[in-house]
């Protein structure tokens, strides 16, 4: 509760603050302070199990240690994102405080979709999350690609919203209890009536769209590529992770009873996402676009949680979101500092900026899933969950083959950084502060610590 209310309030404060504060650098500090306070408030709630605010929500929100842990992860990653890329947000355009305000609204949406207990709140949360994102995507007003991306995102998003509403309506109409509450839907289910089946498929389609699972992924590369790189970083990590939490929460709590009946559908989506994401990423020349496809590929791995749908899967999803977000935010923070977004642009980085190169290597190794990094633990837990499930062991083996493919494109960057000579004659001046480097190192250390002790995170699930 703390996080939902405080993020909304702070978003409004930031928005109106923009009217009075003319300084361009002040909003960043305000945002960081606010976020730190919200994070602390959330941790207190996680620790004591009691919120500062007691609002009668008619059980429409359901707060438990799982979603509080996720919100903690999301807020911490956002804080890291602010600290690492705050200076770059200022460079996007003139209305700096609005960008921060929008991000706070998105965070409010993130909290809503991870705690919803009725389909209405899910819908509201998804919308609160999406609409500011459309704006952020188009925030580089003079850039044609950014405008195209925003429009494309908006149109596709509007479609998926429509589909989701249709699905909600069908599920509402089809279940015997006549309720939006997801627990009631689950209780009411005996067998699978046609209306519910149709609604379930529609909901699955719209959620797959949000998490960019194949075959609903076509917007992802263009939008991620067109949006200003700082915001790509945010939307490909925290927003995507939140959509996953919503996805698993919806399908576990509302349709968990009929897992056997929709499991095949998820299996196909997972396999397709893994295959398309990994294969297409191999052929990318631009690192930004490659990361867009890699985010599809990683989504495929996260979908294994929905395929397995057991306790290990939930633990795994929390670790996965943390590992993936940390590594991706880190690699994007480095990418923003580059002049040239192609893979060749990374040539010889190890000589020019050893700290950047070494930390980028840790992030990439984590994305590949090499032991000692958080990425390994994430993939490991997902694989355990999928094996525990017992069905379709071929999917697990297929996922592993895809992970091996992913090594190819992640290592291309490592090869460029360490083993190739820079082909640019003039060294460009790096806009890098010592604090930035220190933060990168802290992020890398965090990834390694999580890789050794994932229980630092998962213990909170049972707190």
């Amino acid at each position: 509760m703390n996080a939902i209310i405080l993020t909304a309030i702070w978003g409004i404060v930031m928005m109106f603050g923009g009217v009075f504060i003319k300084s361009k650098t002040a909003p960043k500090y305000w945002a960081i302070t606010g976020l730190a306070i919200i994070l602390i408030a959330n941790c207190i709630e996680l620790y004591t199990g009691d919120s500062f605010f007691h609002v009668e929500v008619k059980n429409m929100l359901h707060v438990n240690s799982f979603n509080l842990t996720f919100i903690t992860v999301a807020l911490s990653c956002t804080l890291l994102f602010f600290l690492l890329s705050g200076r770059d947000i200022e460079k996007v355009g003139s209305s700096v405080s609005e960008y921060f305000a929008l991000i706070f609204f998105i965070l409010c949406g993130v909290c809503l979709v991870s705690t919803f207990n009725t389909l209405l709140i899910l819908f509201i949360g998804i919308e609160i999350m999406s609409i500011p994102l459309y704006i952020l995507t188009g925030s580089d007003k003079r850039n044609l690609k950014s405008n195209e991306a925003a429009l494309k995102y908006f149109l596709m998003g509007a479609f998926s919203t429509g589909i989701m509403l249709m699905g909600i309506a069908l599920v509402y109409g089809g279940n015997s209890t006549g309720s939006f509450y997801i627990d009631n839907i689950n209780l009411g289910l005996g067998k699978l009536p046609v209306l519910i089946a149709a609604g379930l498929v529609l909901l699955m389609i719209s959620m797959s769209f949000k998490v960019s699972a194949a075959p609903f992924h076509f917007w992802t590369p263009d939008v991620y590529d067109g949006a200003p790189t700082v915001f790509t970083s945010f939307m490909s990590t925290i927003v995507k992770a939140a959509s996953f939490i919503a996805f698993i929460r919806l399908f576990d709590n509302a349709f968990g009873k009929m897992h056997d009946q929709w499991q095949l559908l998820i299996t196909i989506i997972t396999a397709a996402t893994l295959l398309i994401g990994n294969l297409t990423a191999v052929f990318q020349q631009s690192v930004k676009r490659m990361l867009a496809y890699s985010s599809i590929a990683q989504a495929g791995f996260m979908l294994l949680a929905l395929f397995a749908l057991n306790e290990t899967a939930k633990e795994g999803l929390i670790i996965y979101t943390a590992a993936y977000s940390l590594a991706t935010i880190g690699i994007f923070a480095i990418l923003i500092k580059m002049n040239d977004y192609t893979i060749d642009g990374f040539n010889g980085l190890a000589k020019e900026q050893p700290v950047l190169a070494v930390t980028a290597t840790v992030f990439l190794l984590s994305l590949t899933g090499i032991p000692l990094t958080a990425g390994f633990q994430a993939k490991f837990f997902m694989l355990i969950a999928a094996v525990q499930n017992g069905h379709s062991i071929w999917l697990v083996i297929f996922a592993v083959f895809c992970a091996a493919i992913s090594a190819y494109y992640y290592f291309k960057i490592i090869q460029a950084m360490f083993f190739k000579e820079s082909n640019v004659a003039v060294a460009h001046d790096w806009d890098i502060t010592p604090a930035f480097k220190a933060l990168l190192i802290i992020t890398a250390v965090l990834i390694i610590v999580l890789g050794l002790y994932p229980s630092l995170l998962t213990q909170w699930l049972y707190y």
Partner: protein
Amino acid sequence: MNPANIWITFPELLIWFPLLAGVITLFIKNDKSVKAWALLSTIITLVISIGSICCSGDKYFYLNNVSYYWLQYIGASFSVGLDGMGRILTLLTAVSFPIIFTATYKNEYKNSNLFYAFMLLTQAGLMGVFVATDALVFYFFWELALIPVYFLCSRWGGEKRIQATFKFFVYTFLGSLLMLIGIICVYQHTASTEYAPHSFAIQAFYSAHLSSMQQNCLFWLFFVAFAIKMPIFPFHTWQPDAYEQSPTAVTMVLSGIMVKMGLYGVLRWLLPIFPAASIKFSSIVIFLSVAGMIYASCIAIVQDDLKRFAAYSSIAHIGLMCAAIFSMTQIGVEGVMIQMFNHGINIIGMWIVIDLLEKQTGVRKISQLGGVAHKAPALTILLVVIAFANIALPLTNAFVGEFMMFSGLFKFSIWYAAVAGLSIILAAVYTLNMIQKVFYGQVNTLTSTIKEISLNEKFILSVVVILILAIGIFPQPLFDLTKDTVAILVTRFK
């Protein structure tokens, strides 16, 4: 010696010391002190390793087992231990590194502190693989040994290093991921412990309840990982390229020690966990191994590049070891144990000679060399002993091992033993052919500039030769070390 009373035990020391030494190396700036420190630290590791053999009373099984809590709630703990097989392989790792560092002492590397740091980290990773008694810890080290090698080869290797190393990396990465699935599947069938529903401990894995169908499937998931590492035909295609493109010091590690990871994996994990499946598939594996031996020997005969020549010769030798393991006889497996050590020493000796030749002449082509014996007699004498060991002539160390492995294979099937026996003849053909062309014959313009090898090179080759002869004449200590491990292993198949 009660492990509870000591604050650190040998297996831990064997991992942490090289690791620490590697990290320290990163911070040394001066090239000369880097080399001296790296060499010194490996000698200390060697002392530790010898200590682990002499000072611990019990040679039987995991009495030295140490474990710490780590990921307790999923049943994994950081546990390490040393039995006879672990001792012999950690000893090999510990002996090899000082030899490698001394032999390549004069090689200059760019950023030498990084080079030596990665080498020492590799050593730590290898030690970890050989002492791990927990499946997850084993997997961790299995992968971690690979990462520094990847950087070593890609950074300091030959012309086509990036592609060759990457091929090697993807092959082994895929193999180990398949093994990870295998580990998870076995884990699902282990008994519960006090804290977790299942366990990753080696004893739990050994007593996992697996139906014969499950054994048959999981066997291959593990086997592919180990077969790629060894490598067994048809998974060997990464090897010649990787050996050719790596800097020679790394090639020595790859061929001398890293391939033993595959053999070790089979002995430590594959056979005891899946005894029924191992017996069932033993003829398939032996067929692949023997086919690979003949195939690799034939290719070695026509190889013109010395590095590729040694690579193929190594594939042939490893094939024999794998075949002997799957014969599952006491004598065969004992032969493998001793041969794992010997092969490491011999192949490193071979690489040292190749490295010396390449440094002096700049070429590795057999056809371009000739008459080296006239210019460097000492080198030639030492090389000939190493070559004899490569052919497994009596009085050399390899004879003991190969003789036992052939007896084991003979007990399994006369036909396989006969076909495999051909490889000894082929080994003589290609090895003697190489000596004849490179060391005898006419001196040409390239070889006319060759000088006799220097003192430290003589010294290190002599150490190799002394080891070869000493083990060849008196192999008993090595047998004593591994006898019990082998006995325990073989009884699982009775």
